């Protein structure tokens, strides 16, 4: 039996700890963990105030994307960046954007978590005369006047380039392809599937025998690939919608006693460091990059708008593509 005083004290301590924990949850949940909350308002000297709401920190790609933006929109370059992480929740992003509007920032930029449901908050930004720039992912608003431009990779094009490479290099004989899809319903998953199918349609040798979601994660990529290996003994090529799922597939293929990159070829999209390393080691055969370094382009767009210029409503970033030799050459100087 614990004495009563101890129990009371323990209770008080726990309640205090709980309160702290909840307070911490509250602040992170609000989605507005601005790095520079002190200087509210857009008139902080000659600096251009930019509010940026990031999706989260779910992958190596995203981390590189965040770093590029934080490293480019610096005070030295004439920007005052207010950065917030939405932890993959739309309500956090909407809240962050509202707080940017309230603070009266000069520009708002964000990577929408999902495609739909942005009309109301973007309308508010428009009323407040704050230009909005979309990065990396699009919104499905019909009213394109709600944002100035959408800068990011063309996901359909990425899928198409993978498809063309497979068709040209491997499709000279009949091949069976299995596809590891991204998160069901997300724009990259839909578009990358579409692009690949478009590109391989004309080649009767390329046959997609199975397609399942691996949710863009390594663990699920591996689980699904294990199932594929059981169900289909004659897989020639794995098409993974991102590197992480491709890396998971490598593990599954090795566990099945086959050699990834030789017995079963792997192609994927992203070009993150682990993926590029596997490519240079010969375990992946081809990667189309999805460039996360959007910072410099974003800075250019804002500067152009600031000086009264206009920008294209859709700006496609430059994506490279790598085979094994190119990956080995590029790896030492890669930034992410």
């Amino acid at each position, binding site marked *: 039996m614990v004495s009563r005083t101890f129990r009371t004290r323990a209770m008080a301590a*726990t309640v205090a700890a709980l309160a702290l924990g909840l307070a911490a949850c509250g602040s992170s949940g609000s989605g507005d963990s601005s790095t520079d909350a002190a200087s509210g308002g857009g008139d902080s000297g000659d600096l251009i105030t930019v509010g940026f709401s990031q999706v989260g920190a779910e*992958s190596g790609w995203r981390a590189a994307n965040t770093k590029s933006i934080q490293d480019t929109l610096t005070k030295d370059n004439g920007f005052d960046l207010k950065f917030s992480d939405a932890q993959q929740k739309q309500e956090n992003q909407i809240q962050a954007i509202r707080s940017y509007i309230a603070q009266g920032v000069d520009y708002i930029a964000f990577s929408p978590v999902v495609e739909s449901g942005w009309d109301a908050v973007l309308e508010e930004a428009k009323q407040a005369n704050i230009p909005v720039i979309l990065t990396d992912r699009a919104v499905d608003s019909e009213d394109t006047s709600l944002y100035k431009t959408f800068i990011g990779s063309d996901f359909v094009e990425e899928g198409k380039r993978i498809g063309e490479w497979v068709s040209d290099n491997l499709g000279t004989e009949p091949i069976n392809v299995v596809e590891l899809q991204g998160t069901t319903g997300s724009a990259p998953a839909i578009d990358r599937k579409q692009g690949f199918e478009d590109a391989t349609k004309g080649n009767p040798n390329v046959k997609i025998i199975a397609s399942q979601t691996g949710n863009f*994660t390594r663990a699920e990529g591996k689980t699904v690939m294990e199932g594929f290996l*059981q169900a289909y*003994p004659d897989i020639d090529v794995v098409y993974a919608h991102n590197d992480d799922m491709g890396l998971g597939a490598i*593990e599954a293929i*090795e566990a099945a006693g086959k050699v990834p990159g030789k017995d079963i070829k792997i192609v994927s999209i992203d070009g993150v460091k682990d993926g590029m390393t596997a490519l240079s080691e010969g375990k992946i055969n081809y990667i189309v990059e999805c460039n996360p370094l959007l910072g410099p382009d974003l800075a250019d767009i804002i500067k152009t708008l600031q000086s009264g210029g206009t920008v294209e409503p859709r700006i496609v970033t430059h994506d490279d593509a790598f085979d094994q030799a190119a990956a080995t050459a590029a790896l030492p100087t890669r930034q992410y």
Partner: protein
Amino acid sequence: MNLGAIARHRLFWPLVALVLLLVASALKSPAFLEVTVRDGHLFGGPVDILRRSSVLLLVALGMTLVIATRGIDLSVGAVMAIAGAVALSQIAASPDPGALSTVLLAMATALAVALAVGVFNGFLVAVVGIQPIVATLIFMTAGRGIAMLITGGQITTVTSAPYKTIASGYWLGLPVAALIAAFVFGVTALLTRRTALGVLIESVGINPSASRLAGVRARTIIWTVYVICAAFACIAGFIKSSDIMAADSNNAGLFIELDAILAVVIGGTSLAGGKFSLTGTLVGSLVITTLTLSITILGIPVNAVSLFKALVVIAVCLLQSPVVQHRMRSRRRRVAPVPVEVPA
């Protein structure tokens, strides 16, 4: 035993579901049930199921004990993420990631952290008297954040042969992960069925006050099961992170608390506490793992995956429920009122 008694057994329908899933997969892909020797170890569908189910089984075992005391532990997924994050960050930071000593030390640290979480959960429930669902919710939400802090928001990837053995290694031709889970299952069964611990846990679950008055140290028992649960989740976290050789704080063990609770329930342990069945939990874990694997093999369209899972689970739960079982029995009797009906 006659057929009626078998059909009434609480594990009858889960086992039927398991067999049906296996048969369906084997029909779709005849090689599925084949077990061959490849690279000196067993390889095939059943081996994959055993290896895959180890993670869920470990988590569900701990959950069974917690549920038997009328509790619930929602923090298991977060504990898995923390375990992977602590172990892999330490291995990644060490000068010699491939050394066995490094790996063991890293795992010991992670286990210590997980035990601390378990002690905290147990303290809140057993001493402070906070409802288990609320008490463990704290770490369910905060734990993943802690794991993210440890890995710096990145996916920490390491290359370390000893650590890789946990999930991908084989011993005597059998997957190490499955052996670990089997060992933990054996120890838990021994401790709860060959010592008084099992009875004590059940008595606390049935009536904590009465057990306390009868001289059972209810508080210690409850505290202990949360610590055990966290320890098992930690081992599951090792297997999960070793599986991909990376600590993915966002996704490791995501929603596994729900799968674990489901496995426990399918296994026939009541959420109201009291009687529990470790064998039932084993069957429940196998059903859920096989279900996940069979989705890939049967080629269920991506958009229908959740629906397919839900339908199977609903079917099993309905068939298991006492009301439905009673109805089915009385209807059978009405349709065929044969006097030869033998009592059990």
